[in-house]
């Protein structure tokens, strides 16, 4: 095959794509999205729409804007994620599958095939040309949209997020996997409808299999199922009565079913391509370019530097090792108004009592925070608890120490990671209560008993003896960010399954969360599909 043949095949792919009606429609949609990004300006303080015709403040978005310290960045990222992951990554990909799935079947149709395959070009080369025609289709749309949106944000909002450009590549990556499957179906069935339907099903099924496995694994590893198991074990231990035994058996069956479903999901996930990881890859690649801008940087001489990134899942030390946290740990003096300290310590994770089956499990951060809560109640009384284990999924607790008001505050976050327990203890002066340090309402009766008092209510004034003046409240946003960020960080069970999975997904993570493995297995699937297509095509009579 010479250069002229390759040029002809590339030109053929180009003509085929540009003639496609769906491609033209999607091109218009992409152009509209890009145009919108030029009509909205994300400022530091507010959002200006249509060159100032409407101005919205970030506060109007409430909980949607995740970071109080960088509302613009946070909002822009939400917009970018919506565009790339939802609009393009889901609906866009499905439309592209529908629009390109007939490329290969049409090549193999009687009449067309005779014409094309009688040319001095190998069969597989012709098939690949159709495969790459589909990829070209998606690449044009993806790059136009992502680069266009980035240009809009950069010009109109001055927001430069070059890592976002990786999203275009990951969209193409997702489609390339699906397109290989589509080509394989097309060579076997030689039918456009079969190719479209089966590829759509694969796309949805891989997404479901991946999400199911992540959800189940998250539930298992973060203690949800562990609690279930323990309850079953407890029922078994206590179960002298027939009812208790039946209950234990029921729970045991539930656990077996859970394990079975998880195994099936795992098998599916292992065999099928991990198209769902594309978003993770995009975010990871994005981080690799933009890095993390720490909200809080605390330094002390040559001591380790703690970077805390609000709204993100990691905190990291640079300059020193984690072993410096052992023993008394590291203490930073807060230089903000009112002072205060934050101490971070590390210790080996305590173990639970052996279960009936003899297994010794590590205590979870939930267990540990409950123990701490009990100690606080014992020492300072129930009323001291400002944030109970029921809040924030049980890893953080805030309380006031006993004594005369104004009472100093304490905030503690427990993080379990691998074999270690990390404790972040903030000791804050009296009146240190950030304005947006909100308290969640307790949902059940037990939690309601430990609900924090409303500090501004009469009742609180009676109990606490002194009403806080708003002027007394110190701005401790950075501390709050610190604590929240840290708690999100290495104990991702604080968040949801997706966040947990994202926190684990990395280049050097273990097998199930490894980015290279994800890419490798997906590419292997892609190559396998193309190989099957090749074998089939080699034996096809035209």
């Amino acid at each position, binding site marked *: 095959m010479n250069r002229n043949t390759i040029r002809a095949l590339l030109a053929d792919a180009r003509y085929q794509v540009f003639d496609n009606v769906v491609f033209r429609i999607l091109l218009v949609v992409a152009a509209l999205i890009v145009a919108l990004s030029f009509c909205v300006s994300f400022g530091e303080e507010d959002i200006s729409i249509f060159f100032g015709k409407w101005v919205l403040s970030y506060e109007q978005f409430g909980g949607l804007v995740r970071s109080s310290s960088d509302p613009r960045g946070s909002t822009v990222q939400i917009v970018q994620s919506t565009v790339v992951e939802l609009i393009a990554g889901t609906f866009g990909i499905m439309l592209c599958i529908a629009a390109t799935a007939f490329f290969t079947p049409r090549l193999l149709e009687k009449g067309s095939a005779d014409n094309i395959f*009688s040319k001095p070009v190998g069969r597989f080369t012709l098939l690949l040309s159709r495969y790459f025609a589909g990829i070209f289709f998606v690449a044009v749309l993806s790059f136009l949209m992502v680069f266009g949106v980035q240009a809009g944000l950069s010009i109109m909002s001055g927001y430069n997020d070059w890592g976002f450009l990786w999203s275009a590549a990951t969209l193409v990556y997702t489609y390339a996997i699906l397109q290989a499957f589509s080509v394989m179906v097309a060579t076997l069935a030689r039918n456009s409808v079969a190719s479209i339907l089966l590829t759509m099903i694969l796309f949805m099924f891989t997404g479901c299999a991946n999400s199911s496995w992540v959800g189940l694994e998250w539930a298992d590893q973060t203690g949800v199922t562990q609690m279930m198991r323990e309850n079953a074990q407890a029922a078994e231990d206590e179960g002298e009565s027939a009812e208790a035994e039946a209950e234990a058996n029921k729970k045991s069956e539930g656990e077996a079913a859970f394990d079975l479903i998880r195994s099936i999901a795992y098998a599916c996930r292992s065999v099928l391509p991990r198209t769902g990881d594309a978003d993770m890859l995009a975010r990871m690649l994005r981080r690799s370019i933009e890095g993390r801008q720490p909200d809080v940087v605390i330094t002390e001489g040559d001591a380790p530097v703690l970077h805390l990134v609000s709204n993100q899942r990691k905190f990291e030390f640079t300059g020193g090792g984690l072993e410096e946290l052992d023993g008394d740990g590291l203490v930073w003096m807060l230089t903000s108004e009112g002072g205060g300290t934050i101490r971070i310590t590390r210790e080996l994770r305590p173990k639970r009592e052996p279960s009936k089956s003899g297994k010794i499990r590590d205590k979870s951060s939930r267990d540990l925070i409950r123990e701490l809560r009990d100690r606080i109640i014992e020492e300072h009384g129930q009323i001291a608890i400002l944030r109970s284990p029921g809040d924030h999924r049980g890893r953080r607790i805030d309380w006031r120490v006993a004594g005369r008001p104004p009472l100093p505050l304490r905030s503690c976050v427990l993080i379990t990671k691998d074999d270690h327990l990390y404790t972040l203890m903030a000791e804050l002066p009296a009146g240190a209560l950030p304005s947006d340090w909100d308290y969640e309402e307790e949902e059940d009766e037990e939690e309601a008993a430990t609900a924090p008092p409303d500090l501004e209510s009469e009742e609180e004034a009676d109990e606490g003896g002194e009403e806080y003046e708003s002027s007394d409240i110190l701005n401790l946003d950075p501390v709050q960010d610190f604590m929240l960020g840290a708690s999100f960080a290495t104990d991702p069970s604080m968040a949801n399954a997706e966040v947990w999975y994202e926190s684990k997904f990395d280049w050097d993570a273990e097998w199930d969360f490894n980015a290279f493995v994800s890419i490798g297995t997906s590419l292997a699937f892609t190559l396998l599909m193309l190989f099957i297509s090749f074998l089939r095509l080699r034996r096809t*009579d*035209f």
Partner: protein
Amino acid sequence: MVQSDSILSVRDLKKTYTKGLFKRERFEALRGIDLEVGRGSVFGLLGPNGAGKTTLIKVLLGLLPSWKGEAQVFGMAPKNPASRRRIGYLPEAHRMPEYLTGWQVMILFGMMTGRSKAEIEERAPALMQRLGIWKDAHRKVRGYSKGMQQRLGLAQSLIHNPDLLFLDEPTDGVDPRGRKAIRVLIEELRDQGMTIFINSHLLQEVELICDRVVIMHQGQILRQGTVDELIGDAERVSFVLENSNEQLNAALHAFGQAHRTEPKGISAEMDDEQANAAIDCIRKSGARIREVRRDRKTLEDVFIELIEEDRQ
């Protein structure tokens, strides 16, 4: 061993199609074909539907990967894509990519044969003009009529100036004027030394154009040779009669051969002496002769006779 100096040679070529999940349904499309084709001739490939004509062409073009026997095109196995570099092919009921214009079809298909764009661009206008599709060159193929698509198909098969051309029903859907243009073009190409294979049901056309004819039936070659060799010198005499009866018909079977009963009489291959004797016989029977016609045998006659014989 297949001779390598011929353009195309086939020995004991067999092809069986299988169908069904376990490939139990089998159909023998070619049952041992032997064929040798030299340069610069026009070959007519004749046969009823299912005779194996298209299958034979497809094997030679590498469109059918599994077959038995020996086959070589330009000294190469048909599986080798390089063997198709000097071949042009106009498939039966072909479909050009609808997203391309006629001009783009010419350029892309030409370049797929390895020729440069400049070379193709130089040849394409003349060919398209010759076949009457130049004014529609920049229209999408989806807007072409069947005849135009057929002419475009022929044009693309010639764009790289091949040495061997396979035409499967080349005049299908083309109007009489277009058909004549194609016929003239084929004759010119033959004169230029191109070897052309024509697979057609229009036997008169084949007779007009082809130097050699191969007649196939049920996957086998029944006969091959020049048109004159196949037709021979025998002539057919037809009698149109009045008051004919079965007795007379039976009596006339004694004169000549290959008798055919026609609506108003009888025809048979016979020489002058036999024709005169037959006339005497008719007169004696009391029947009236309305017309006596002497026709030279056509390729169609030969074809039908051969197929009928083979069926019997």
